[in-house]
């Protein structure tokens, strides 16, 4: 029996918004056709809901209610000082910055000049002027097929960074791509980064999603980063989503690792009403090393979902995951981590850990590790824990004169610190640690 599920208000609004804005979105015929296919696919899929296993804990039919108008050619006045203020401690890290405001590249706010070994082009321009072969690469992903969030990104993407790190290049400072939400009106913002790290290159890429003080709340952001690392490349990729003001933040990382490549991904999320961070990684050659980690600070009614798939498609690769959630009030943290080891992926070494610190009896942590192992000569393990603050350590701190709230903060920082330690860039790690401290000391509503 085939029962048509009635479309939700948001599903309808999304297809209508696409129809109304398609002609204004960047790209020639081939791109337009890819966008049309994507909205068609979305229309057939609908918003994911709890009956779809991967979306069991994050029901977008329920949580994605209103659709703000898509941000196209936005011209909100924003100063460099505004951006610095929005970035907080991260603004002090020495980087080469490329800034986007409401999904549009802002040359005036970006670091002028070039960096050796690095090419950065705004996606909008690449979609408009690129050959069909180029735009095909920009409109397709290695992420999961039949994913509504990816389909929406392809349909609506306005801009982002197309990054090419040359073979053998070593970037002398991190590249930071900043996405700023600004202005009095909420928007649906859709951005995409397409990153390729050349063979033997070494680079650090930071993606920061932040909002200006006083920016409208209630919008939606949909961000996707498509990452390809060449043979022996070493890429560090950091995503920061700190108070983006969005009601819904949908994020995808699709990463493919070349032979002997090393990819270190870290995600920091706080002050996010609802976030779904999907990470999909696949190895394309042996000897790849993957290290994924993250820290999530969740309070109020916030909901942060991390869903990742590590696909050991080839032999002799290593994967490590460490995710730490701090959950307060009625905050909800979700971790779904699937490790697939294909039949020929012998000598796979995979370890995964997800830990939640529960600061309130009303907080909820849902953790679903999955191992799908089809090879026989592998070492794979996963673990998950959820615990309250250690009463013995709390007493220890207090017995040394440290007041309760400072002692709690110290122990929370110690918990989060283990994940933050995965960030090897000293200034950036210090800046993120400062984010966590600010979060801990924020006045409670």
């Amino acid at each position, binding site marked *: 029996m085939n029962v048509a599920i009635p479309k939700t208000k948001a599903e309808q609004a999304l297809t209508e918004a696409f129809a109304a804005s398609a002609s204004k979105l960047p790209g020639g015929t081939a791109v337009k056709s890819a966008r049309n296919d994507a909205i068609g696919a979305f229309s057939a899929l609908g918003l994911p809901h709890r009956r779809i296993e991967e979306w069991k804990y994050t029901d977008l039919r329920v949580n994605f209610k209103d659709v703000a108008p898509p941000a196209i050619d936005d011209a909100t006045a924003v100063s460099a000082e505004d951006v610095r203020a929005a970035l907080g401690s991260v603004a002090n890290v020495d980087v080469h910055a490329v800034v986007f405001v409401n999904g549009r590249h802002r040359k005036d706010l970006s670091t002028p000049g070039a960096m050796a070994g690095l090419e950065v082009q705004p996606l909008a321009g690449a979609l408009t002027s690129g050959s069909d072969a180029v735009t095909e690469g920009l409109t397709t992903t290695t992420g999961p097929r039949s994913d509504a969030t990816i389909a929406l990104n392809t349909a609506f993407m306005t801009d982002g960074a197309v990054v090419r790190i040359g073979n053998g290049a070593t970037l002398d400072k991190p590249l930071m791509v900043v996405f700023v939400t600004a202005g009095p009106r909420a928007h649906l913002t859709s951005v995409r980064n397409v990153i390729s790290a050349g063979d033997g290159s070494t680079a650090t890429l930071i993606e920061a999603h932040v909002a200006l003080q006083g920016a409208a709340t209630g919008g939606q952001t949909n961000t996707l980063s498509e990452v390809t690392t060449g043979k022996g490349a070493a890429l560090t990729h950091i995503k920061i989503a700190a108070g983006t003001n969005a009601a819904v933040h949908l994020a995808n990382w699709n990463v493919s690792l070349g032979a002997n490549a090393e990819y270190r991904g870290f995600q920091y999320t706080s002050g996010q009403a609802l976030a779904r961070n999907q990470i999909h990684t696949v190895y394309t050659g042996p000897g790849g090393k993957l290290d994924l980690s993250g820290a999530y600070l969740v309070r109020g009614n916030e909901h942060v979902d991390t869903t990742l798939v590590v696909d050991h498609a080839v032999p002799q690769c290593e994967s490590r995951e460490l995710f730490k959630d701090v959950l307060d009030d009625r905050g909800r943290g979700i971790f779904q981590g699937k490790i697939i080891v294909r039949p020929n992926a012998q000598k796979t070494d995979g370890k995964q850990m997800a830990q939640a610190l529960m600061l309130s009896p009303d907080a909820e942590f849902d953790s679903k590790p999955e191992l799908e192992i089809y090879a026989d000569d592998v070492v794979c393990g996963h673990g998950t824990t959820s615990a309250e603050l250690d009463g013995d350590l709390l007493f220890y701190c*207090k017995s040394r004169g440290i007041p309760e709230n400072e*002692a709690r903060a110290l122990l929370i920082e*110690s918990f989060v610190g283990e994940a933050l330690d995965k960030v090897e860039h000293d200034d950036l790690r210090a800046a993120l640690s400062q984010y966590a401290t600010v979060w801990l000391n924020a006045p409670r509503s």
Partner: protein
Amino acid sequence: MLEIKNLHVKLADEDKQILKGLTLSVPKGEVHAIMGPNGSGKSTLAYVLAGRDGYEVTEGDVLWNGESILDMEPDERAAKGVFLAFQYPMEIPGVAGLTFLRTAVNAVRKKRGQDEMTTPGFMKFVKEQAAKAQHRRRNAEAPSQCWVLGGEKKRSEILQMAMLEPTLCVLDETDSGLDIDALKIVSDGVNALRSPDRSTLVITHYQRLLNHIVPDKVHVLADGRIQKTGGKELALELEKSGYAEFTGKAA
């Protein structure tokens, strides 16, 4: 002066009475030892003095310098000069020993109305206190690596004690797990802190610690009460005769 008056303590979530009318005074400048068999309530006494959760005082009081401390939070007690050296010292993962120590020292100084210490001032203070407690650096090649970073938990506990400048030191079975050399080093640290303004309560199961930290008085704790009080020679008697006399009385 520490005055423990007719102290009755039970476990908070269990109907189990542990201390059953313990009375004891430790005047300023004195070191008293509490000895007793396992399960006599020694550690409970230490925790109740420091203010740990999980215990309920059903009767009696604890006065420190004439003021009841039972309603105070552990950090307030620390500011009043109470220090508990743990049987098994703790560490906070990922927090460096010196960072923790500085946080603690400044928290206590703030509550005592003293100025917080700057980094150089604090480092100088660490060096002074470590020298006073006769702690030598473990590795002369790495002068910045004060031994406190070496993970020698018991010794770092004694340095904490020196740094927080307590007036009431409670040492809970601080000899547990120490070899004879470590015992001597820890004892030297405690002895260095003996002063006319400080009361010290050494809780131990064995007499051997008291060869190094010589007490003014020895109390025998069994079945939740002080069963006998004497001079330092009482510890030697106990070493010979054991606790049977007192546990027998308890049964």
